């Protein structure tokens, strides 16, 4: 951007008839920042328009909802009362008796009274 702030680019509109205000450093910085902000906004506009176009051919949410339901089919999950998938033998290590110097409890199996 030209340091003198005028004449660096062709003006889209005719000069105003009133005298120009005196140029100051603050104005130059202000114009620079404004230009940068406008560039960012223009870029944002482009991206938003791309996203709008995308939505024209996008499937509705029901397609993804169906995928969510299907993704859980047959998946093992130790935290569910009944696991939809195969039991993993490694889970049992969490329910074997554990004795440490800090613990006074013996945990025998999942069904024991632990409260």
């Amino acid at each position, binding site marked *: 951007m030209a340091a003198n702030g005028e004449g660096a*680019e062709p003006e889209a509109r005719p000069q105003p008839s009133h005298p120009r205000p005196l140029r100051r450093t603050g104005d130059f910085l202000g114009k620079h920042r404004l230009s940068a902000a406008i560039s960012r*906004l223009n870029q944002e506009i482009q991206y938003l328009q791309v996203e709008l176009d995308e939505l024209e051919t996008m499937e509705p*949410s029901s397609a*993804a909802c169906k995928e969510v339901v299907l993704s*859980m089919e047959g998946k093992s999950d130790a935290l*569910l009362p009944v696991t939809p998938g195969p039991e993993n033998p490694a889970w049992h290590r*969490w329910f074997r008796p*554990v004795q440490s110097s*800090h613990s006074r409890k013996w945990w025998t199996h*999942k069904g024991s009274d632990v409260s």
Partner: protein
Amino acid sequence: MSFSELKDRHVAATAMVNTLRDRLNQKRQQLLDTDVAGYAKSQGRTAVNFSSTDLVCCRTLQGHTGKVYSLDWTPEKNRIVSASQDGRLIIWNALTSQKTHAIKLPCAWVMTCSFAPNGYSVACGGLDSECSIFNLNSQVDRDGNLPVSRVLTGHKGYVSSCEFVRDQDTRLITGSGDQTCVLWDVTTGQRISVFGGEFPSGHTSDVLSISINSSNSNMFVSGSCDATARLWDTRIASRAIRTYHGHHGDVNTVKFFPDGQRFGTGSDDGTCRLFDMRTGHQLQVYSQQQANNDQDVPIVTSIAFSISGRLLFAGYSNGDCYVWDTLLAEVRIIQLVH
């Protein structure tokens, strides 16, 4: 171009952005023909039923003397690192409940921690705006403290979240109060990529949480005080792949769904939501019903999915932990754990 002409252009561009955003919101609303619960019910699915002997606490890990802000498991799921504002990281053998390391931190105000995939290192970060890496096999110093093996400096705000990239021990992603996320090379301490910041555009407020896609470690999501979540490709720092709108408050926590195609969020607005990564659709809202509206809705501070994704665990600011049926969007257990 004169200053006033630039100002006019700025006003016009801003108005255009707002118009387009409104159109986008409307178009998205039109595409939401059902949510997950609506679809699941239409398929005859019913909610998970827990009995009193299901979901029993099998370990209580005691040792911290301050609030525990963060924890992470090793990939083998047998060890845990936890971070507390008592100024320590503790490494636990989760099977035996015993502590293997208690690491005194240079800065007590820790907010996040992560276990390296190889299980030999841990990372943490917080109000010091740095991410510290500790090698668990290093020699302790004269005071019995584990020395910091690497410090990742560069963020201009607090480090709210960090996560090692799962198939690479040398890479870590952080989220920060400086509105950016950063991909780091841990061996050199260098920033590989910065996601967001003034140039290029990204979150417009603090990043509070990140989650790396376990199915595709090139992708991660971030949650922010700007009420959005954003999806990033680590190979493309120039702009977020997608921005997810819906929450009405800070997005405190984000977590990928086990299938790697969806992710969950938790927010100051008291709700959790499930978003579809690819389309951007908001698939489900998990919202507590409030009997009396004059009470503040507790905010969601952290979430996690069970391994199949069927259960969504949500921690709230009032100390509750709810277990949601992800499919039916119903709370199945209200569990006061602390």
